[in-house]
C-alpha cells in the first residue's frame, strides 16, 4: 500500500506539471483582468510546435522555446480582441481554443505515429537523489519539472513583493485607479496575457516532448480547461496553483492505476472532470465564505475616459 501511494505521488508530479505551467500563466493573465479561455488551444499548438521543432532540430529546449513563442503569439490574438477591441472575452477565448485545435490538427498530421528523436534524461540532483524514499520522490525528474517548481516562488514574489506585482494586481482590480496613477493599463494587460500564452505553450510542450514523447491529435484532452478551473481553485495564487496542479496530476495517475481493478476505463476517464466540478464547487464555497474572489475587473474591458 505504501509502495502504491509512493508510486502515485511520484507520478503525480510530472502529470501535474503541464497543468502547473498553464495555471501559472492563467493566474498572471487573470490577475491583470483578462480571462483567457484559449488555454486549451494554446496548449495544443504548443504541443505540436514543440514536437515538430524537436523532431527537426533534435533539441528539446528549442522545441520548448518555440512552443512558448507560438503560445504567446496566439495569446496576443486574444489580447488584441479583448483589450483593444474589447470584445466578449468568453467567446473570444473559445474561438482561440477552436483555432488552436484546428491548427494543431492540420500541422500535426505528419507527426502522428512518429517516434521521438530525443528525450530528456532525468536530472538527478547530486547527493539528494540517492536518499531513500525522498530521493526518487523529489529529486529525479526532468528539468522542466524543476523549472515549473522554481517559477512558483518567483511568481509569488513578483506578485506580492514587487512594484511590478502591485501594478499588475491594481490593473486587475481597478484599472481606472491604476490609469490615474500613470500605469499603462493596456500594456500591462498585453504583457500579462502574453506571459499566459508563453506558459500555456510550455505546458503543451511538456505533454508532447516530455510526458508522452509523441504527437497525438487532441492530446491535451481538456487539460487547458482544467487549467482554467485550477486558476479559480488556486484563488489566483501561484502557491495554491502548485498544490492544485499536483492534486490533479494525482487524479490523472489514479485514473490509470485503477484500471487493473476492472473498472471500465470510460468511467475512470470521467474522474478528472467530475473532480474538476467538485473542486469548482468547493472553491466557490470558500470564495463566498472568505469573501475573496476573482480580480475585481476580470472580464471587464477597460475604456479610457475621454478627457
Amino acid at each position, binding site marked *: 500500500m505504501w509502495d502504491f501511494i509512493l508510486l502515485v505521488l511520484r507520478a503525480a508530479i510530472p502529470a501535474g506539471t503541464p497543468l502547473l505551467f498553464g495555471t501559472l500563466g492563467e493566474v498572471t493573465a487573470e490577475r491583470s483582468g483578462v480571462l483567457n*479561455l484559449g488555454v486549451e*488551444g494554446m496548449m495544443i499548438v504548443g504541443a505540436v510546435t514543440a514536437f515538430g521543432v524537436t523532431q527537426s532540430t533534435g533539441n528539446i529546449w528549442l522545441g520548448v522555446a518555440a512552443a512558448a513563442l507560438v503560445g504567446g503569439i496566439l495569446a496576443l*490574438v486574444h489580447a488584441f*480582441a479583448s483589450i*483593444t*477591441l*474589447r*470584445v*466578449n472575452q*468568453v*467567446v*473570444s477565448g*473559445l*474561438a*482561440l*481554443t*477552436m*483555432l*488552436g*485545435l*484546428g*491548427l*494543431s*490538427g*492540420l*500541422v*500535426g*498530421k505528419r507527426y502522428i505515429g512518429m517516434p521521438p528523436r530525443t528525450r530528456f534524461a532525468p536530472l538527478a540532483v547530486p547527493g539528494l537523489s540517492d536518499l531513500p524514499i525522498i530521493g526518487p520522490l523529489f529529486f529525479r525528474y526532468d528539468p522542466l519539472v524543476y523549472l515549473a517548481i522554481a517559477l512558483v516562488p518567483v511568481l509569488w514574489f513578483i506578485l506580492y513583493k514587487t512594484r511590478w506585482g502591485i501594478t499588475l494586481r491594481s490593473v486587475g482590480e481597478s484599472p481606472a485607479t491604476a490609469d490615474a496613477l500613470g500605469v499603462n493599463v493596456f500594456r500591462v494587460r498585453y504583457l500579462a496575457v502574453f506571459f499566459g500564452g508563453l506558459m500555456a505553450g510550455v505546458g503543451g510542450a511538456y505533454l508532447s516532448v516530455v510526458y508522452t514523447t509523441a504527437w497525438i*491529435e*487532441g492530446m491535451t484532452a*481538456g487539460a487547458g*480547461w482544467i487549467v*482554467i*478551473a485550477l486558476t*479559480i481553485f488556486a484563488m489566483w495564487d501561484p502557491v495554491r496553483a502548485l498544490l492544485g496542479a499536483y492534486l490533479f496530476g494525482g487524479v490523472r495517475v489514479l485514473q490509470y492505476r485503477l484500471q487493473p481493478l476492472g473498472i*471500465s476505463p*470510460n*468511467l475512470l*476517464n*470521467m474522474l478528472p*472532470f*467530475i473532480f*474538476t*466540478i467538485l473542486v*469548482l*464547487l468547493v472553491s*466557490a*464555497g470558500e*470564495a*463566498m465564505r472568505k469573501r475573496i474572489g476573482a480580480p475585481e475587473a476580470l472580464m471587464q474591458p477597460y*475604456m479610457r475616459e*475621454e478627457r
Partner: protein
Amino acid sequence: MKGWLSLRLEKRLAVPRWLEYLTLALSLLLALAVIAVLFRALGVNPIVAYQRIFRGAFGSLYGLSETIVKAIPLMLVGVGLTIAFRARVYNIGAEGQLLVGAICATGLALACPNWPAWLLLPGMFVVGFVGGALWAMIPALLKARFRVDEVLSSLMMVYIASELVNYLVYGPWKGAKEMGFPYTDKFSPSAQLPRLLPTRIHYPTLILAVVSAVLAYLLIQRTKWGFEIRVTGENPEAARYAGMNYFTTVLLVMLLSGGLAGLAGVGEVAGIHYRLRYPQGVSPGYGFTAIIVAWLARLNPLAVILTALLLGGLLVGGDAIQVALGLPVATMYIFNGVILLFVLGGEVFTRYQIRLEWRRKT
C-alpha cells in the same frame, strides 16, 4: 516626426441596420481571406480547398441536402444557445446535452422496440429533451445556487457525457450484431424517423427546429420571461433591482437550451444513424459549432435558421476537403475559430466608431 498611430473607439448612439449586415458580410469575407493565408502557409492550396468546399456543400442536390441534414442539429442547438446567451448564461456544454439526449432516446428505443411509431418517436423526443435539460440543470444549479462558473462546469459535463456514451456503446449497450463496432443494435423501424427520400433529411426534426426558432423568437421578444432574460443579460443589477428572479432565469434558459440540444441528439440517432454510436460518430462537435451559429445570428433565433444552414454547408464542405485533400477532421475548427474571432471583432465596428489618429509625442 515622432509619434504613434492610435486607435480610438467611440460608442455609437444608434446602429444602422445596413451597417450591421455590411460588417457581418465583411467579417466573414475577411475571415475566409485569413484562413486562406493560413492554409497557404501550411501547404494547402486555398483556392482548391474553397472550390471543393463550395462545390461539396452547395454544388449538387446531394450536397445541398446534406447541408440541410447538418443544419438541423445546429439549428436546434443554436436556437437554445441564443436564449442562454441573451441572459449572458454561457452554456458551453450543449455538446454534452446533445449526447445525453441521444442516450435517453436510445434507451427508450432499445427498451420498447415494439411500441408503434406514433408513440415511440414522440416519446424519444420527450425523453431526449428531458435528458438534455437535466444534464444542463447540473451546471445551472451550481451557477444559480453556488455561483460556480457555468462555462467550466457545463464544459466538464461534455467530457463526462462523452465518456458515458463510450461506456454504453463499448459496454452494456454494445450491439450483438455490430461486429465489434462501438455501436448499439439498430433501432426497430418504429424508432426510425421518416426521411425526405432519397435524401437523409429527417423532416420531423427539421420542422421541430424551425418551429423552435419561431417559438424562441416569440419567447424572447413577446413574453415577460423573455423580457426578464434580456434584462438579466444586459444589466443584471437592474434585473435584481426590479425584483426579477436571477435563480429562475438561469434555470429557465439552461433548461431550454439543454432540452433543445437534447432534441438535436434525438434527431441524430433516430433520423441519421438509427443507433447510438461512439460520441464523435453521433456529433462532430455540433454543440460547439452551434456557438458560432448563435453568435453569427447576433443571438436572434430566427436568424439562426440561416446561419445554421451556412455552418452546415461549411461542415459538408469540410467533409469534402477531408476526402479530397486528405486533411484531418480538426481542420474545420480553424474555420470555426477564425470566423468567430472576426465576427466578434466586426461587432466592434457597429458598436463603436473607430478613429485612427496620429499622435505626436509630447
